[in-house]
């Protein structure tokens, strides 16, 4: 089978980012040779960007094993060394990284025997042997702890339906969450009954000045990510291209920004965010609108930054649907520090 040097289909890459690597990885949305996919199941290459907190290393191994064969992985050192693993770290710029990803993908596709083995042991987490000490095998469908995991049981909810409660820990490498953030939710149907947000226990790099307004580049990167989460991948690519094309002084062509803003308005994205994630009287649509204004007219004084703790944000998310909660988290700018959230 002849494999050409130019891959015409985009290479599916799943990016597991640390806090430092997340921003540069969003610039990859500008490149049509790479497709940043939302789950490792769709990916052929796992990209590990930047240093990862030490208590998330096992989660990273688990994500690596969830990429289907033939798989390979690439590490990108931006802002620090990535954790050790079967990958070799590369310290290149964006163009170099794209070429490394394409080469890795073509190599593993042409030689599937070089696909990477599992990093975690092949052990079923909870064996089932007859009627066990946790009640598995004897309880039937109503409760009990089959395979060592509890069954969902009912609980009261706002509509009086008493649906089953599902407890999920949405981990740090989910595409829909900012880097390093873990979301513990209790879901009934799709309504969040209870949400808790955690950062990693290990001390991450502290922001130089968390109260300083974000630069154009980081705003455009966050905008590109939020547009991808909304399903608007074409607009996400356009925002990423603007982020990559920023000049040294951080200026970009206002005509391009105005065009992007017009396309966003025509798609109605801000309209879908009405009433989502209300914090201090401003919802996600207000926050994004003020960010887009600050891009086009930098002298405009925006509203004062709101600081709230992660616990308060978790409490504010209770009662929303899961998709609204994800959109609300995407509209908030998280400081690098431990507990503070800064919005807008």
């Amino acid at each position, binding site marked *: 089978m002849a494999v050409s040097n130019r891959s015409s289909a985009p290479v599916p890459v799943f990016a597991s980012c640390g806090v430092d690597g997340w921003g540069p990885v969003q610039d990859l949305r500008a490149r049509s040779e790479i497709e940043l996919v939302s789950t490792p199941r769709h990916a052929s290459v796992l990209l590990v960007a930047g240093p990862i907190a030490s208590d998330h290393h096992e989660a990273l191994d688990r994500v690596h094993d969830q990429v289907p064969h033939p798989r390979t992985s690439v590490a990108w050192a931006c802002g620090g060394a990535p954790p050790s693993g079967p990958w070799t770290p590369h310290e290149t710029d964006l163009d170099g990284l794209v070429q490394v990803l394409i080469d890795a993908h073509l190599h593993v596709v042409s030689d599937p025997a070089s696909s990477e083995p599992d990093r975690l042991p*092949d052990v079923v987490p909870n064996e089932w042997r007859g009627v066990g000490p946790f009640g598995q095998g004897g309880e039937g469908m109503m409760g009990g702890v089959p395979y060592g995991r509890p069954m*969902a049981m009912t609980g009261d909810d706002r509509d009086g339906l008493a649906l089953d409660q599902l407890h*999920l*820990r949405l981990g740090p490498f989910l595409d829909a*969450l900012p880097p390093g953030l873990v979301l513990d939710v209790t879901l009934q149907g799709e309504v969040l009954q209870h949400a808790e947000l955690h950062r990693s226990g290990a001390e991450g790099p502290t922001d130089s000045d968390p109260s300083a307004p974000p630069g154009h580049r980081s705003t455009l990167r966050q905008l590109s990510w939020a547009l991808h989460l909304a399903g608007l991948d074409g607009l996400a690519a356009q925002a990423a291209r603007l982020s990559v094309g920023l000049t040294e002084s951080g200026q970009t062509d206002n005509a391009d920004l105005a065009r992007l803003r017009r396309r966003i308005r025509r798609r109605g994205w801000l309209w879908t965010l009405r009433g989502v994630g209300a914090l201090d009287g401003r919802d996600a649509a207000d926050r994004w609108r003020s960010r887009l204004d600050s891009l086009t007219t930098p002298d405009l004084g925006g509203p004062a930054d709101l600081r709230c703790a992660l616990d308060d944000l978790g409490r504010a998310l209770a009662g929303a649907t899961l998709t609204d909660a994800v959109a609300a988290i995407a509209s908030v700018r998280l400081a690098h520090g431990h507990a503070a959230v800064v919005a807008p």
Partner: protein
Amino acid sequence: MLSAFLAGLAVASMAFVLTVAPVALARRRDPWGSTAPNRVPFLGGFEPETHAWSRFHVRYYPMTLLFIAFEMEMMFMYPWAVVYVEEGAKALMEMGMFLSILSVGILYAYREGAFRWQ
């Protein structure tokens, strides 16, 4: 008749081959197999802590049962309505007995709370 049997046999064997052969070939040519870490559902890095089986209400179910039962009663009343005028009071009494037997079912459903909205 033999040709019809052979045709059926040919179709059945082709169906069998076309379903079993790809699965067998795929299994034989799979170099990696499926391991436990590969099968963990993707939640962003952690293992799931509870089962994802959630029960949902099927609130239309008792309504549907009642509807079907009395729809069948209506089916019996359609031909009765055609001949009722000719037959007179005897037909009326017979249909009344039929309906009273079925109304025992309504009484049972009422006692079981099937007519309560919540």
